[in-house]
């Protein structure tokens, strides 16, 4: 059992990791075909992962309803909404509109999903204002520099700011193109090296936490 749970996945990881690391340097059509096959498998597994997600959701909330835990009413609402949307979606063949006419599924998408998602995203504008008011204080020299740069970029990115202070547009572009780009690049290099190192550890079996459990 341990062999199946530990050694086999590690072996699969090692072989596929090395093969597809090498594949990057092999332009031969055979190598491309192998990559295409594997990416098709990834798509298939990705599709099943959706099913896994939905079934986990069903399972979790079914337990909540059965045990009548706090907030089980909301789980019931979730069940009804999920089943209703699936039924309507299947009935509409997954289409939001047929020949220009909105389907019931399209109605749910346009009048429930789009406004709800938009609302959540819109809350960000309010939250950033309250977070800025609470935290954007020049507690130190570095914080003061950050504050000034933030004000310049905020001014330079909107027409009103450029109208009031014409220089803010060019300054904000310089901050974004020079200062910001170089710092982002530095973080990107660090993160990329970390990713490569972690990938090497996973391929060679030195990092096994993704399999679950601790050391043996």
């Amino acid at each position, binding site marked *: 059992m341990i062999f199946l749970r530990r050694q086999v996945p590690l072996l699969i990881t090692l072989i596929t990791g090395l093969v597809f690391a090498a594949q990057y340097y092999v*332009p*031969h*059509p055979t190598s491309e075909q192998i990559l295409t096959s594997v990416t098709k498998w990834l798509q298939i597994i990705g599709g099943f992962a959706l099913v896994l997600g939905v079934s986990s959701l069903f399972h979790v909330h079914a337990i909540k309803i059965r045990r009548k835990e706090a907030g089980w009413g909301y789980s019931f609402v979730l069940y009804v909404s999920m089943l209703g949307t699936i039924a309507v979606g299947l009935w509409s063949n997954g289409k939001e509109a047929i020949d220009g006419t909105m389907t019931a599924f399209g109605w749910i998408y346009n009048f429930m999903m789009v406004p709800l998602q938009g609302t959540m995203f819109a809350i960000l504008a309010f939250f950033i204002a309250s*977070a800025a008011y609470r*935290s954007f204080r020049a507690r130190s020299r570095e914080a003061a520099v950050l504050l000034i740069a933030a004000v310049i970029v905020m001014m330079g990115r909107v027409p009103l700011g450029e109208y009031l202070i014409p220089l803010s547009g060019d300054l904000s572009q310089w901050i974004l193109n020079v200062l910001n780009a170089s710092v982002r690049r530095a973080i990107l*290099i*660090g993160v990329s090296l*970390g990713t490569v190192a972690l990938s090497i550890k996973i391929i060679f079996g*030195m990092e096994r936490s993704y399999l679950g459990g601790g050391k043996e």
Partner: protein
Amino acid sequence: MALLLLSLAVLSQSWLPVFAQYDDQTKKTLSPPQDIRAFDTPSDGGGSLTVIWSPAPYDSAATRYQVLLSEGTTVPDPAAMKVVAEFPANQHYVRESKWPWWTKPATGEQHQFTMRNGRGVELKNGIAYSVTVAAVLSDDRGIAQPVQATPQPNWMNWNQINNLLLALLFGGIVFYAISRAGKREIFLRRIPGLDAVDEAIGRATELGKPILFLTGAHDMSDPSTIAAAVILGRVAKRTAAYETELLVPHRDPMTMAVCQEITKQAYLEAGKPDLYKDDSNFFITSDQFSYTAAVDGIMLRKKPAANFFMGAYFAEALLLTETGASTGAIQIAGTDSDHQLPFFVTTCDYTLIGEELYAASAYLSREPVQVGTLLGQDIGKGLILCVLGIGTILATLGVLLDVQWPQLFLDVFKDVK
């Protein structure tokens, strides 16, 4: 009358050689391109041929080169071959090609043109083609003798050998660093965010409130989620020891399954297996804002004393952290999502920036493998810094002195396909 006759004689005699010379000159054909070589384009998947030829005295914007192609090795009439490309004669040099110096097929002054399959050109692998180049100036055309070449797919992309060597070098550095970390103690600088983990857990225990731990938006294939899961193991061990409630809502079922195992193991190692609860790790939904709304609800109802935001995040970052801040919780974040860093830094007490998240598992566990990896990464970064410095100086020298030799060093670190 005599004058008229004399004029006629002069006109008919003296100009004739001039006109005759001019006629001779216009009748002379343009000399065809010299030293034509055609070969299978190296380091590709096939379906491509490259042709090289020497520069000519008439190379200018007025003269044009035509590249001609036909299938087969015999060409009855080169002039009837299909024209696959035409361009001014002062273009398409080897020096302008993107190939690095170790794969360049000729000196920089030579002309080079690469034909690829598609867009009107058909080149099948394994079939011989005849290729030639013609020089054209007005009505004049000089066609070189066709040469043969066969496109073939290649097993190695030599243009990327520098990439491979650098990858192997970095891999070697990581292995060396891990072996060194196994033999001696390696210094790790203090990461304030991680020191605060104990403080946060202690505070939650004192207040009798739970701890909320989020593993981010990505699945287990992402390094940030793996790092978050490793940190969860350490946090779970502490919460087991202090008997504090742990809440870990998930966006991905596979991550949840892995984190359940990690948490179970942590409770086992802490000697408190009976305190472990399966539903401390629970799945909410994969949808970004539905998950955020649910977690916000948990924060407002359960009022955890400590919130950990580890992993990759997107727009939901600020929604989560601002809600957490409003409940008065101590918040520690760690992410490699640089676009969300400003929001975390603004709203959290401690933030692990970028690879500090990956370093966190090493810092907390002090395992030789983890610490060695960190050392390897730092050596890699040191190398990159040196290359940046040397490269900048050499590139500047190359421009100032108008020399090409700095390109030998710079090409080694260029990404060429």
